[in-house]
């Protein structure tokens, strides 16, 4: 199965619900305030957010007026275009120019950080890379064990300490190990934390500092994992994590489980943080690159 098919598959739910709804609203109708209102509702129900929705609808109205569009059917292309515009260009997770490539993974509780790291490790392992995982979640019960199972599956090495120990110390040891063992990639797991807990956000900053002190320019990537079922609070999360840890990319997980995927549009628009990866299933192969064009096309493909 090619990438596109997979994406289409993974997004099946979203496509079915969101697009079918949009298409049924637009089909054979003439443009009216009610029609725009219905579109607005559909976008909001996809968690796109009130702000982004209003912007999309406003632009849509303007363009329909300018291009003298009167039938609902033509609106689809324009809507697609407007949504793609908000998402911007594709931005990939690119290997760092120097080794070790350090990737730090952050996010609130329960979004799927550890699973994402497991999938990443497996992917890099398959590419023949030497991967070290750092069990920086020293808080949640059995978090290190969970990562250990993933490490075994992907033949990555694991650096872990006792439960309850200082995560910055884990990061430090992992960085040393990565340097000494000449690893290609070091991925650092962190405990889930709500962005409102100032002291825990300070802890993340400290982990980041420890890494930067030991390796120049590291961590080269800080990924914020967001759960696709998250509503508008996702924006607050992204904002605070970005400020604290210089997040440079989003991993959007559980996209297969929810019928909505709209939050990515709001995130990009409000924070210009690109989505780099998406999780569309629980298997190792279900971590995909995010391509805005494919995403929108997949949303609208029949």
């Amino acid at each position, binding site marked *: 199965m090619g990438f596109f098919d997979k994406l289409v598959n993974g997004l099946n739910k979203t496509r079915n619900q969101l697009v079918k709804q949009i298409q049924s609203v637009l089909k054979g109708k003439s443009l009216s305030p009610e029609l725009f209102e219905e579109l607005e509702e559909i976008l909001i129900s996809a968690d796109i957010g009130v702000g982004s929705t209003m912007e999309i609808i406003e632009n849509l109205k303007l363009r329909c007026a300018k291009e003298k569009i009167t039938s609902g059917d033509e609106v689809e292309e324009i809507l697609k275009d407007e949504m793609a515009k908000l998402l911007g260009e594709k931005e990939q997770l690119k290997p760092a120019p120097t080794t070790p490539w350090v990737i730090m993974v952050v996010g609130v509780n*329960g979004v*799927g950080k550890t699973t994402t790291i497991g999938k990443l490790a497996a992917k890099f392992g398959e590419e023949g890379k030497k991967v070290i995982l750092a069990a920086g979640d020293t808080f949640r019960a059995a978090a290190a064990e969970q990562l250990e199972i993933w490490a075994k599956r992907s033949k990555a090495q694991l650096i872990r300490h006792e439960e309850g120990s200082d995560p910055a110390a884990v990061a430090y040891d992992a960085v040393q190990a990565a340097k000494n063992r000449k690893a290609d990639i070091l991925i650092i797991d962190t405990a889930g934390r709500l962005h409102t807990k100032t002291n825990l956000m300070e802890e993340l900053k400290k982990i980041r500092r420890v890494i930067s002190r030991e390796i120049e320019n590291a961590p080269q990537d800080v990924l914020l994992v967001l759960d696709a079922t998250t509503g508008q609070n996702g924006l607050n999360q992204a904002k605070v994590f970005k400020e604290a840890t210089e997040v440079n990319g989003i991993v959007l997980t559980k996209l297969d489980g929810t019928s909505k995927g709209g939050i990515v549009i709001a995130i990009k628009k409000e924070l210009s943080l690109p989505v780099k990866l998406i999780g569309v299933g629980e298997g190792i192969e279900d971590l995909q690159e995010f391509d805005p064009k494919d995403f929108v096309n997949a949303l609208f493909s029949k």
Partner: protein
Amino acid sequence: MIFENLAEKLQNTFTNLKRRGKLTEKDVELALKEVRLALLEADVNYKVVKTFTEKVRTRAVGEEVLKSLTPAQQVIKIVYDELTALMGGSTAQLDLSHSPSVIMLVGLQGAGKTTTAGKLAKSIKEKGRKPLLVACDIYRPAAIKQLQVVGSQVGVEVFSLEGQKPTTIAQAAYKYSNQNGFDVLIIDTAGRLHIDDELMQELVDLKKILSPQELFFVADAMTGQDAVNVADSFNQRLDITGVILTKLDGDARGGAALSIREVVGKPIKYASFGEKLDSLEPFHPDRMASRILGMGDLGTILEKAQQAIDEKEAAKLVQKLTTDDFNLEDFYDQMQQMKKMGPLNQLLEMVPGMNKLKGQADLGAAEKEMQQIEAIINSMTQKERRQPDIIDASRKRRIACGSGVKVQDVNKLLKQFSETKKLMKQFGGLSGKGKGNRIRMPFFK
């Protein structure tokens, strides 16, 4: 990103509306636009928003604006009342009448089932019962280990069987509890994505075997518009008995609560406020209503206050806070009380009007600032504290000198104080006097 709260928005919408009397259709229309936005920004499902605003419209048009309220406050009162009503009356009790009583937890991955299982076990144990935790999540790596760690933290035994099907584990656990005198079973199940029919079927089978008295759907307060669909599909297959809402310790407005309650029609029984195992509380509809509206919660803050200070003092504090003769001495006392109540950010969340400071303000810096304020007030005479108006330039210099700060800092404090006072007065004129120390909401009786 940090939204103005609904109260402020409505105040602004109505600034030109000084008129009293009845709310007209046009007034209500204007207000409902803001209400709708606020609810959507709080993740209330858009369909629920629609029916809800209709309900409010019907009730609000033609309603007399109460003497003590502005039209904006009148609308908020209606919205708040309706929201509270929608989220249900008093919270139901746990059904523990059977032996063993069975409680089953279901929900999406990462919602907080395992953690909640531990919390429930703790509170049930504290009631003098003998609970047994049962590990039926055999899929997530290390899930059983997680429950074992949680179990040992609360001192409750965990039943698990390596390499067995959940239904087999459940049956064995049932037998085990009978033989060993356990009288409550708490079943932790595998998280799932609701489209997964296979796993859903497994839950249905588990339910059949266990006939649980309580079957809770565990939901994350940060969930967006999809919350109702997920809850609905769990309910359709499993006929849940209630909902437990988790991660309310963050700043999510939690519109999912309202949406699920409205669409699924099952009560929300517990609210979870943290990862620690004692952070499970009964659900309070009125608090949730103010939270969804982003209007803080004086009720909670007062309860917290009571833990730290005695009731009389709390009553005095509230009185002071909301009346005219609030002075720097009270301000100082209040700061001392606040220190006892806990970290600033938690408190800010609960004070109406302060909510938007949160997230903007660096709270570490805020704590430092509090120390400075303390030092400044300490350098004032009693008279100055009681009548800040008399503090002139030379007094300011003396105070600055005494507390080791700049004159600007003294100025800043005085300005802040007078603003706080204004704010408090605004709330005070409207708040529930005569209710002793329990004010439910800033605007209402």
